[in-house]
């Protein structure tokens, strides 16, 4: 056993040296830089649109007819939920694949570029009808609301572009496995494999949905099965959010321990968390339909169980993260029950931002558990509470982790270094973002409990007393939104400064090593075929009953409506 560790230690040392001397290849770097640039431009645009909504909901801003609230909201969702997340995730993991698998294969790099332009093309196609007010249907586009067919064709290209990247990743990992028989996929690439498996399988349902919508939107087919479309959408929709969460989790397990000068958590447990999240994720989407008609209570109850089960690997992660922090801090001389926290590098944005991101997942995860539970879901469904929830999970846990990653990932691919000034800017940005999100999402949670609905432009409902009593809470959306806008500007400045203007130099790709005395990870963790089969079996258990019921016992379908 010792020799095994020594050997893998040596290869690691050799790889690190090679990496230090040569760094990432220019071609792989260019790919990631392009993906990250799009991601941060998306957050700039999406942020501005978000601020407009916050000001509107606070009753401070009336949006003009040529750019109404629902257009802004559709674009905000598409930019941040689809563009930002997909482009960051792919850019980050492709850099990780390049770094840990000895460079991208030329074929794979080409696939990632084809995927890049397909996604951009698809996005432009989707945005044109939104701007023309022909697709104010939100990024969930529930039929029988029907947007311009161009909108859906754009979505098809986005999905195809994502698939190109997923297959590229599979090819690169498979080739590495062939060249390194008997070895474990390096941990970051293991996470990447999980993420791309989910991206591929999770987007199959929405692809089917969109292919049934397109002929209907063109008018070639008269009616559509509304519940089938809705169910297929959420099989994808919730998987998507968990994909970015898994991306953030990869950084928590692999990157952050190295940034604080420690070692990473037990390799076997880390891989079990990835496998569990891959197997259980897709079925979680059903809790978005807990108060839908046409689904029997036993089926809904089974789905509550399937959704709640996803909480378990997250609770494993919560323990692992704090254990790593404590262990690292104690090795550096930290003392006391909690006094060790002083030994953590609080002034380093590469730690501070992901740390706050993790801490935010404590209330965010608890809120998620509440929301997925039958009766509690009924209390908050489609209220502002839900908006508060996903601004905690995505706006804090995921996006702040992405921010934290950008302070070394961008210098790494640009062959530049993080300067103390930009680090300081990052720390201030982190504080502003944290305050903004706490204020905004706190108010959203509270006013949601009182009944204020989501996805609704400012309304007093004809001066209704109950609706008017929500106004003071909604005012905090404007305050939080303004702070977040400042945060967006600082972040985007930092990103492009680090990409083009920071001093040249070598930046390390921080990957933590396992503890020296750790037992080798068993081989069964590498059985990806088996995990995919388990996932498909679970998806079958979850979806065959309701989908067959919706298809076999379908009511007459719905014609398309344009209600905006």
């Amino acid at each position, binding site marked *: 056993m010792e020799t095994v560790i020594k050997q893998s230690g040596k290869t690691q040392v050799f790889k690190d040296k090679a990496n230090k001397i040569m760094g990432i290849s220019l071609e792989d770097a260019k790919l990631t830089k392009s993906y990250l640039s799009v991601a941060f431009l998306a957050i700039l645009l999406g942020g501005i649109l978000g601020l407009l909504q916050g000001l509107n909901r606070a009753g401070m801003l009336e949006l003009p007819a040529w750019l*109404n609230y*629902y257009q802004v909201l559709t674009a905000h969702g598409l930019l941040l939920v689809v563009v930002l997340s997909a482009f960051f995730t792919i850019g980050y993991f492709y850099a990780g694949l390049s770094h840990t698998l000895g460079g991208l294969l030329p074929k794979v790099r080409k696939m990632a570029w084809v995927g890049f332009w397909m996604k951009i093309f698809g996005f432009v196609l989707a945005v044109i009808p939104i701007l023309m007010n022909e697709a*104010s249907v*939100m990024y969930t586009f*529930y039929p*029988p*609301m029907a947007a311009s067919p161009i909108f859906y064709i754009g979505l098809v290209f986005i999905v195809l572009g994502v698939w190109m990247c997923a297959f590229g990743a599979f090819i690169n990992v498979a080739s590495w496995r062939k060249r390194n028989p008997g070895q474990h996929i390096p941990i970051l690439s293991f996470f990447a494999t999980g993420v791309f498996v989910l991206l591929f399988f999770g987007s199959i349902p929405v692809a089917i949905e969109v292919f049934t919508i397109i002929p209907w939107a063109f008018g070639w087919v008269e009616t559509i099965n*509304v*519940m089938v479309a*809705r169910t297929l959408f959420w099989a994808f929709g919730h998987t998507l959010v968990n994909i970015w969460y898994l991306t953030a989790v990869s950084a928590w397990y692999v990157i952050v321990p190295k940034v604080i000068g420690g070692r990473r958590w*037990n390799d076997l447990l880390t891989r079990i968390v990835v496998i569990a999240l891959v197997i259980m994720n897709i079925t979680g989407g059903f809790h978005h339909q807990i*108060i*839908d*008609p*046409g*689904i*029997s*209570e036993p089926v*809904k*109850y089974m789905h*509550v169980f399937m959704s*709640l089960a996803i*909480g378990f690997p997250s*609770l*494993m992660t919560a*323990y692992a993260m704090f254990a790593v922090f404590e262990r690292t801090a104690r090795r550096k001389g930290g003392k006391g029950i909690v006094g060790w926290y002083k030994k953590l590098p609080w002034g380093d944005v590469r730690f501070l931002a992901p740390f706050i991101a993790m801490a935010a997942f404590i209330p965010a995860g608890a809120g998620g*558990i509440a929301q997925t*539970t*039958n*009766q509690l*879901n*009924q*209390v908050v*469904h*489609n*209220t502002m509470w839900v908006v508060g929830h996903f601004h905690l999970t995505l706006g804090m846990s995921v996006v702040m982790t992405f921010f934290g990653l950008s302070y070394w990932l961008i210098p790494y691919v640009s062959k530049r270094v993080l300067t103390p000034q930009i680090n300081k800017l990052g720390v201030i940005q982190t504080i502003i973002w944290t305050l903004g999100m706490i204020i905004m999402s706190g108010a959203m949670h509270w006013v949601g409990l009182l*009944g204020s*609905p*989501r*996805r*609704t*432009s*400012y*309304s007093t*409902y*004809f001066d*209704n*007393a*109950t*609706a008017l009593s929500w106004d003071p809470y909604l005012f905090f959306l404007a305050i939080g939104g303004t702070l977040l806008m400042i945060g967006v500007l600082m972040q985007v400045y930092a990103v492009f400064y680090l990409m083009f203007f920071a001093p040249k130099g070598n930046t390390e790709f921080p990957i933590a090593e396992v503890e020296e005395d750790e*037992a080798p990870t068993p081989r069964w963790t590498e059985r990806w075929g088996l995990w995919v089969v388990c996932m498909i079996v679970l998806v079958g258990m979850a979806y065959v009953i309701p989908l067959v019921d919706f298809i076999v*016992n*379908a*009511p*007459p*379908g*719905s014609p398309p*409506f344009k*209600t*905006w």
Partner: protein
Amino acid sequence: MMHRSEKVWLILSFGMIIGFMLIAGYQAFAFEMGPPSYGERIDPQKVDETAPFDKPGIKKIGENEYEVVMTLQVFSFTPSEIEVPAGSTVHFTLTSKDVVHGFQVAETNLNAMVVPGYVQKITQKFDKPGEYLVLCNEYCGAGHQMMSTTITVK
């Protein structure tokens, strides 16, 4: 491999999730507190001709018990401005004539998706007198923010 404290943590985590499950299940099936799940189908293009939606309105069906048959359409509820005495139990029977709508009554647990092609049912006892705001909580178009009415409990 696992530290004792981690085992304790994971047992607690597992117990918490199972506890949630058991309580949610017990409430749903023993106390009928489950979410609205009515499953009857209807032709969404013939709502006006289909009973009971051909005569939407409020009907007294027992001592302190009412049935409200309601259609939802852009951007209104029919009937609107409902009135019931305090202490009434109201059974709502809902369907949509066009797109997906939400039926939510602020300050109560009334919250249900109303999907074209499906009949949805939900019940609430109104104890406290007052004016309750009924609103659509699923985006349904340009006038979505105006789609509301009231239930007055006297």
